[in-house]
């Protein structure tokens, strides 16, 4: 006991060692193992570890894989744009237009987003299906003569479902940064004669840029890594790279190729995750430049223009 009290490093060790060991075994080691498997080959139903780049060559030379990568990246970007452009007005509305009980609004949105993967898919299938709600309403009001089966099992349905799922990851970071935008700054801009759009573009946007980037990146990552929506509401043409990775294991085809796809996906996701810190640095530089300009023109208190952009 006295030994432990004397040495701080022993205290640290006791506290973090269990989690560190678990993380080493089940987070770090599996990534190494996946990399190792991606450099192996399958021969006569046995894994042979022969340190080859053959699997990566297969992925990047076969249009089956390159098309799937392209499709997943494109869809990820579309979902990111949609999720952010739905989250932004909603977060802005709750932050600046709702005067009382903002907490209830925020809670309601979180509740709606807490639907979970499968229920979200079930819900959208009920909405978009041939006998579904949307078809029912459209034929009811006379827009359609007959219900159409064209609403579900296609690319658009996948994008709708993924956007819904992604909003839980994009709305919260955007809402959090918007809560930090000082209202008096918006009022000041209004008092100085800025139109509502100019207030939003020139005052609000620079302050929330980093949060928006985080929301967009999370939405992209969700869509890029999703392999359930394409199989459950998409058509065969909407299968993405994650489906190919899962397929190699599910059907016991070629594990090393599956592992190699996993490694490629990890690289893409880590690259995407580097974007928010990068944007934060750029914003800092930009606000420094702008402050220099403002010193000559109209002075802006440093605490107002600098802090928000950095946070």
């Amino acid at each position: 006991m006295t030994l432990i009290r004397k040495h701080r490093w022993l205290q640290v060790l006791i506290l973090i060692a269990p989690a560190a060991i678990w993380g080493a075994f089940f987070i770090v080691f599996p990534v190494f193992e996946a990399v190792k498997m991606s450099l192996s080959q399958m021969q006569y139903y046995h894994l042979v570890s022969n340190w080859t780049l053959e699997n990566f060559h297969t992925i990047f030379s076969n249009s089956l894989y390159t098309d799937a990568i392209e499709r997943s990246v494109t869809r990820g970007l579309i979902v990111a744009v949609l999720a952010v452009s739905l989250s932004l007005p909603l977060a802005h509305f709750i932050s600046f237009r709702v005067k009382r009980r903002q907490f209830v609004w925020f809670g309601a949105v979180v509740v709606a987003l807490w639907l979970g993967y499968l229920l979200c898919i079930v819900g959208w299938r009920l909405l978009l299906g041939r006998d579904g709600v949307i078809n029912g309403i459209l034929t009811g009001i006379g827009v359609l003569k007959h219900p159409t089966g064209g609403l579900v099992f296609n690319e658009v349905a996948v994008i709708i479902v993924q956007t819904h799922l992604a909003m839980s990851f994009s709305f919260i970071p955007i809402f959090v940064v918007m809560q930090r935008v000082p209202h008096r700054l918006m009022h000041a801009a209004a008092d100085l004669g800025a139109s509502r759009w100019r207030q939003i573009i020139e005052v609000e946007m620079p302050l929330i840029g980093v949060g928006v980037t985080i929301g967009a990146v999370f939405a992209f990552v969700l869509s890029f890594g999703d392999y359930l929506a394409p199989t459950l509401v998409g058509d065969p043409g909407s299968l993405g790279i994650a489906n190919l990775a899962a397929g190699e294991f599910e059907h016991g085809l070629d594990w090393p190729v599956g592992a190699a796809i996993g490694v490629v996906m990890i690289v893409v996701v880590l690259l995407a995750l580097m974007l928010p810190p990068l944007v934060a640095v750029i914003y800092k530089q930009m606000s420094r430049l702008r402050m220099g300009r403002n010193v000559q023109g109209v002075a802006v208190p440093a605490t107002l223009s600098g802090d928000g952009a950095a946070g």
Partner: protein
Amino acid sequence: MRARLSSVGVWVGIAAIMIFLFAPAIVVALYSFNKSSLMGWPPDPGTLSWYGKVFANTAMMEGLKNSAFVAVVSVVIAIALGLPAGLGIDRYDFWGKTTFQRILMLPFVLPGVIGGLTLLTVILDFQFELSLKTVIVAHATMLIAVVVIQMAVVMARWDHSLEEAAGDLGANEIRTFIHVTWPNIKAAIFGAALLGVAVSLEETARTTFVVGEKDTLPIVVLSGLRRTLTPEINAIGTLVLVFSLVAIGFWSKFGAADLARS
């Protein structure tokens, strides 16, 4: 006049977004009371029979039992490892601390497909058997991140001078933890546990990779979805949704109260 029009436009836009967000949940709940099994338009609610069928469905009940077991064990592991780690991160500066934190967060930011796939490569290479144990490993690894985040939030909020005072008055670290620290953080940990159960109950992406013969509830539902929709899925889905909403309610009351106050 223009201002009035644009204000109407804003409300219509916000209403459209809210309908987009709520529509799936509403139809799932609505059709769980549907009289016909076809779930066509218009909905015809007015029966509880699907809820009765859920409880008579052995595959679903077996799945629910397995899911509950996985959720409870994973949450216990996540707290046993995440709570001391959170304390260590809060109290001490040590070499590699940022890396340690980032690695613990990794399962949370990487898509589930990668968490499941990488874990499966280990299992295949070492020829471990797939079972509920491998599912528990996958879930616990993810939930540690939830507990560590929660610890960071709660530790940043309360007054550490109380702990120092206990130390000055002669209490050792263990007594200080039991009598001073724990009473201050137990509500948040309870909240994190409920959130963890809710997350574990609906985890699908990782689970499909590492599940063995015994299926969890989402896996049962998933294989049902691959065939056709039945109102039973809506009924069990509505039950799970209600449970997670209650769990989140508790979490936000106990765990996130500090968050809201900040």
